[in-house]
Structures are given as structure tokens and as C-alpha cells.
């Protein structure tokens, strides 16, 4: 058991962390908007936490707060993400479908280049030696676990109340929703900003978890991976991101004996899942709707 935990503990926490990122994409998808922007907010949140955890000017603050610096980091990252998300969301969400996806990809790319040119973010090397919250990697489950439970409970409430249904109405038929008097733009921005805030907080939790933070975090590829969790897990259910992350994060680990060819198989699994499970993993459990 000890052996099992030490071997797979990190993987388990990573699954939860990645599932949360998948959920940050799921929020805008609830309103039918495909956005990869939240991965940029994940990078942003990580930088906020990394700077707050290491910057010499903030040493007295860290002394005073002790462990409570971490919740403060989440709070600051979340707030900055909300503000930036609103600023980005209003212009970007006038765009539809693939145009929105491309605009958000552009945001992620531009953000990466900007960070590379900021001295405070440590340039290409990034920020390392970020203070740890816990002795072991596994203990970070106390950060990510509750956040996942909270997010899923929040989604459960959201789906059962008016706001969630407004999101779904836009996803099903935007024109009809608009005709029924739904303030479509505002609702889209709302869904988008919730996703951004979540990604920012996950980033702030991940910086100590990963110990270093640099421009390799929150790239386009990572965004695509998160999208794959949601789509492979099931894009129409809040459980999709968790199931998809469980499959796709553990897959390279399970295929480790295959060494070099494992990423090839990983790609193959993506293709096969798209073809044979168009409803995602969730679709295997739910009754086929004709």
C-alpha cells in the first residue's frame, strides 16, 4: 500500500488538477462557447503564486501570514483572473464558433510571449524554488480535492438553477435564446469568467505543487489536452472532465513499459475515442437518446 501510494500518489493528484483545468473549459462550453483562454489564466495564476511566494519584497508578508499566504495567493490570482477575464470576454465573445477558439488561442500565444519579456516572471527560465505548502506531493490533495468537490457542487447547483439553464439554452440555440430575451452576451461572459477564475486559482495552487513555474506551463498544447479531457470524457456532463482526465493523464503512465511509442498510442486513443465514443465516456453510462 505504501509503495502504491508513493508510486501513484503524484499521478492521482495530477489527475485531480488536470480535471479542474478541464472543468475551467467546461464552463464556457456549457454556454456553447469553445474557448482555450482559461489555460492562459492557469499560467497567469501560477505566476501570481510564484511571485507572491518568492519575491523578496513580499518577505514580511509571508512571515506574518505563514501558511495563510497560500489562500491569499488563490484569492489574488482569482481576482486578477476575473478582472482580466471580463476585459477579454466582452470583446472576444462577440465572436462565434471557430473564430472565438482562434481568438483565445491567439490570447494564449500572446500571453506567452509577453511573459517571456517580463523580468519579474523570470524570462525563459521562469521562477523556481517556490516554497512548498506540504512535505509531500500527495498532500496537495488537500488543495485540489476540496476545490474539485466545491466546483462539482457548484455545477450541480448551477445546472439546477436559472443561470445554468440560460447557459444551456444558448448552447442549444443561441438565436432562440436571444429571441426569448436572454441577455446572450452577458451570459456568455459569465460562463467564460467563471472558467477563467477557476483556472487562475488552479494555477495558483499548482505553482507550489510543481515547485517551478515557467512559460512551458499553460501552453496551447496544454489547452488542447484539457479540451481533450472534456470531449473524451463527455462534453455534455460535468463528470466528463474528471473521467477524461483520469483516462488521458494515466494513459502515458500505464503505457510506460512501451517507452518511445507510448505517445503514438496516446494519439491513437484520442482518435479512436472520437470515432467510437462520440458522446464521451459519460455516454457509455447514459441511455442512448434517440
Amino acid at each position, binding site marked *: 500500500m505504501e509503495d502504491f501510494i508513493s508510486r501513484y500518489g503524484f499521478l492521482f493528484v495530477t489527475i485531480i488538477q488536470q480535471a479542474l483545468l478541464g472543468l475551467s473549459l467546461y464552463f464556457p462550453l456549457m454556454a456553447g462557447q469553445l474557448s482555450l483562454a482559461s489555460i492562459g489564466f492557469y499560467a497567469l495564476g501560477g505566476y501570481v503564486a510564484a511571485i507572491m511566494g518568492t519575491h523578496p519584497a513580499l518577505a514580511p508578508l509571508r512571515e506574518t501570514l505563514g501558511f495563510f499566504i497560500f489562500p491569499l495567493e488563490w484569492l489574488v490570482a482569482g481576482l486578477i483572473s476575473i478582472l482580466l477575464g471580463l476585459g477579454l470576454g466582452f470583446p472576444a465573445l462577440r465572436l462565434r464558433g471557430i473564430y472565438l477558439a482562434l481568438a483565445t488561442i491567439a490570447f494564449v500565444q500572446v500571453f506567452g510571449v509577453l511573459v517571456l519579456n517580463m523580468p519579474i516572471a523570470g524570462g525563459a527560465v521562469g521562477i523556481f524554488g517556490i516554497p512548498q505548502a506540504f512535505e509531500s506531493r500527495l498532500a496537495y490533495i488537500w488543495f485540489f480535492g476540496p476545490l474539485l468537490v466545491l466546483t462539482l457542487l457548484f455545477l450541480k447547483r448551477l445546472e439546477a438553477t436559472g443561470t445554468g439553464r440560460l447557459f444551456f439554452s444558448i448552447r442549444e440555440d443561441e438565436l432562440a435564446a436571444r429571441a426569448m430575451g436572454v441577455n446572450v452576451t452577458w451570459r456568455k461572459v459569465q460562463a467564460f469568467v467563471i472558467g477563467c477564475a477557476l483556472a487562475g486559482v488552479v494555477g495558483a495552487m499548482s505553482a507550489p505543487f510543481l515547485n517551478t513555474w515557467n512559460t512551458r506551463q499553460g501552453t496551447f498544447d496544454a489547452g488542447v489536452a484539457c479540451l481533450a479531457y472534456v470531449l473524451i470524457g463527455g462534453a455534455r456532463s460535468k463528470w466528463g472532465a474528471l473521467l477524461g482526465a483520469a483516462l488521458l493523464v494515466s494513459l502515458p503512465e500505464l503505457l510506460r513499459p512501451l517507452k*518511445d511509442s507510448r505517445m503514438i498510442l496516446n*494519439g491513437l486513443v484520442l482518435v479512436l475515442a472520437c470515432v467510437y465514443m462520440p458522446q464521451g465516456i459519460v455516454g457509455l453510462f447514459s441511455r442512448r437518446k434517440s
Partner: protein
Amino acid sequence: MSLAWFLQNLLNGLSIGSVYAVFALGYTLVFSILGIINFAHGAVFTLGAYLTYVLAVGQFGLNGMLAGVTLPFKLPFVLALLAGAFLSGLAGLAVERLAFRPLRKRGADALLALVSSLGVALILVNLIQYLFGAEIYSFPPDVFGSLPAAMIFKIGDKIVAVRSVQVILFGVSMLLLLALVWFIHFTKQGKALQATAENPDTASLLGIGVDTFIMGTFFISGILGGLSGTLIGVSFGLAGPYFGVAYGLKALAVIVLGGLGSIPGAVVGGLVIGLAEAFLPPDMSSYKEAVAYVLLFVILLVRPQGLLGKNAEQKV
């Protein structure tokens, strides 16, 4: 801000921009037929560069699975380029067969095609890494035979260097663009292709084999991808199995700038982005990689249909 400086940047911008344009056309063709962006296009670009390299140099690199294997022949560069392009076209067909056709036959969500094409991209890129290794290759300097590396022109006391590679990039790209325009507008197959793009169902009622045309589109798209990969590879070296990814994203900016699905738009977009990168002030050169995306963002906010795109009306 001298004339020489201007000419030099114009030349740099046009040569790289024309390659962006060729690469972006591969995206645009598929988009105009299927309305889907093929995210495996960047992987085909990389594959084309590697295949041409192998055919031109006659060996498989240093540390992949095929390290030390040598081909019994070395092709002259022009033949290697054509053979590499043809093989990239076949790779384009394979992408369609794996990632797009099964989903099309099932009438699946367009979003899934995005993920499945990324899956195929993952397969291709890692296959390249597996077979050729991860290090950087560059074409030998004598690929163009006896052409000089560069011609130097003097304007007053400043010099303008015209690299042979740049001239070839521009020339080959323009030839390809002209050939493509001719094919689409002046041949029967091209007309059928336009019909398929306009409305696949009607086209198939009129006796056009839609499946065949979709395959043809992917074949041409693969050729364009592989050729542009080779041209970039000759100019800047083959920077590892992932080097197509960054160009692939940049080409997305190109097609949006010009207008999704518009062929002249892709050309204009490519040249605009190439020139914008070339004319970036030297003290901002660290922001060069962001130029394309900033332009993309601006154009989306001002003119979402792109520079030459048509305004799509919303269907109710």
C-alpha cells in the same frame, strides 16, 4: 530607415510571407470544403521537411530508430522536394482517412474532428521523433548545387543581401499559388471542387463524387503543407519534430487575417504577416512571435470575416 534597410526587410518579409501563404492555403482548402480546421496540418508540414531531407541526404539522421540507416541513393534536391511533397500528399490522405472520414460518416460533432485531428498530429509528430530522433538537422549548404549563397547589392554605402534561398522560397511559392488558382478556376475538377465547397449535398446529387473530392483536397493540402515545411526547413533548418507546431498556429493567424476559406485571402494574410514580422523594429524583436497573433486579435475585433472574407449570414 534607409532605402537599403527598407528593401532588405521587404525581401525578407515577402519570402517568408509567401511560404506562410502556401502553408496557410492547405488549411484554407480543407476549411472551404469541410468547414473544419485540420490541426494535423502542422505535423504534415514537419513530415514533409523530414522526408525531403532524408531523400536529399540519403540517410535517416543520428539518433532515432532509423539512425545509421542509409538509402541506396541520393536524389537531387528538386526531385527530393517533389517526392517529399508527393509523400506529404499521401500523409494528407492518411489524415483524412483516420481523423475525418470516420467522423463524417457518423455525422459527429465538428468539435470532435478537432480532437481527432490533434490525435493524428500527435501520432505523426511522435512517429517522426521515434524514427528520426529529436535533434536539429539542417540541409547541406550545397542543396541548390552551384547557386551562390547570396547576392550582395550595394545601395550607396549600405548593402542588401539577397539569399538564394529567399528567391527560391518566393519563386516556388508564387508558382504554387498560380498553379492552384489555375486548377481551381480553369479545370473541370477545380469547378467540381468549388461546387463541393458550396454545397456537398447538391454536388453529390449532381454526380460529383464528394468523397473523392474531399480526398483530393486533403492530398493537395498535404502537398502544400509538406512543400512549405521543406522550404522553411531549407531556410532555417529542421528544428526538431515539433517545429511545425508553431508554424501551424501562425498559419491559423494567416487564414483568419485573410478570411477563412478565401484563397486570395490566405495569400494576402501570409504576406501581411511576413512583412509585419520583417518590419518590426529591431528593439522589439523579442516580441516577433506575438506579431501574428496580435494582428489576428485585432482583425477579429474589427472585421471578424477577415480582410477578404465574405460575411456569413446567420441561418435560422
